[in-house]
């Protein structure tokens, strides 16, 4: 069973090698003549006004949290979907209760405006 995963490990390694090989190839073949202006950050011709490590919109954070919640929900739905035929009505109702609770949460965040971007 687990030996089926061996090609995947190999594939990951080869994927890394392909990416790294491209970078090394570029580094070997391309010229490398840096100067101060060339190495400055690109901000449409101006010098950078401030460091890029700045505060950012809290909504990105909110999206990340909501993603964690819903991804967890998907993680629970996957096994349920596969065995739905066997667990029958009881399993279906149980998952509908779970889904209902999450939908209440979803409606709450919708009403509170967590999904608004303006």
């Amino acid at each position: 069973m687990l030996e089926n995963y061996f090609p995947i490990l190999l594939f990951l390694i080869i994927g890394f090698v392909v990416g790294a090989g491209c970078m090394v190839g570029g580094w070997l073949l391309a010229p490398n003549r840096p100067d101060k202006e060339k190495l400055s950050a690109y901000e449409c011709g101006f010098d950078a006004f401030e460091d890029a490590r700045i505060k950012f919109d809290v909504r990105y954070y909110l999206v990340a949290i909501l993603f964690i919640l819903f991804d967890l929900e998907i993680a629970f739905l996957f096994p349920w979907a596969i065995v739905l035929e066997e667990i029958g009505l009881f399993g279906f109702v149980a998952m509908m209760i779970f889904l209902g609770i999450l939908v209440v949460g979803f409606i709450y965040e919708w009403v509170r405006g967590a999904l608004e971007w303006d």
Partner: protein
Amino acid sequence: MESIGQLFEQIFGAEWGPMLFTLSTNVTFIFAIVVPLLLGVAYLTFAERKIIAYMQHRVGPNRVTFFGISWLRGWGQPIADAVKALMKEIVIPTGANKFLFVLAPILTIMPALAAWAVVPFSAELVLADINAGLLYILAMTSMGVYGVIIAGWASNSKYAFLGAMRSAAQVVSYELAMGFALVCVLMMSQSLNLGDIVNGQQGESWASFMHWFWIPLFPMFLVYFISGVAETNRAPFDVAEGESEIVAGFHVDYSGMAFTVFFLAEYANMILVATLTAILFLGGWLPPLDIAPLNMIPGFIWLLFKIGFLLFFFLWFRATFPRYRYDQIMRLGWKVFIPITIIWIVVLGVVMQLPESLRNSFPLNLWF
């Protein structure tokens, strides 16, 4: 195959021989996937420029010949582009975190390629026939986001940072819609294995395309494909690299081969999304009509045909639609796609609870 295995055993001994044999066969198969994939990526860029050009009443690249063969005008373009990119300087900005800056493109292309390990090209042609194939693909496509975030952060430029934030939030949002759509596919197929999912779409009657999941799951088919377009940051969802406002998003400061690797990964992901849509909703390698001349064609060809058909839509969308605004993208993902998919899960669940006789009295019997 057998004799080569015995040859390995003779050369390397009974202990190392079989091990090295599996290793070398696997590496050969992996290259048999990666090399055509990278060629496909190269020629997808060419196809994109050509097709969009024809849609805009011009001819697209038609000057670079392929080894001087005059009637293949333009076909050398992707190769010329690759050689040019290889010769360009990789500029690493002063403020950048050098290690992460170099690592980010590699981290983007690694999952984009590795996801292909479980893709079945026909009934037998699959490298790793694992049970949790779909879960693995979902995991790999989620990994791609790390490369984007790391690239945007490591560049130490405001544009790159903003582009990376946008791109990550967008990918993550559409990943949810994709995941919910996949739950519906799983309810129909009862398996996470991609080969089993295709086999589950095989029906008895000759009208094979009527048994594919795109009919019972039609809204999910649309949601999945559109989410795939959004997840690969393609037009009309390409605000992350909106060249007219934040120059090029997370890869502003990348040049030469480092940029090309991002580019390759993006196009490889496009082909992956098209392939998955074909496998999950359009019957993978199955012919559209199970009748004499059509079912003689090898399944592999049918899969390629479906992939090409879906990739054409990617290019068509780009030539047709204006770019969405960021708030509209997030609204579509969270307020339209996620509710639709949740409702469809419930509807499908209810239908599956109906007794067999009732299900068969509907025209649904065609579907289940």
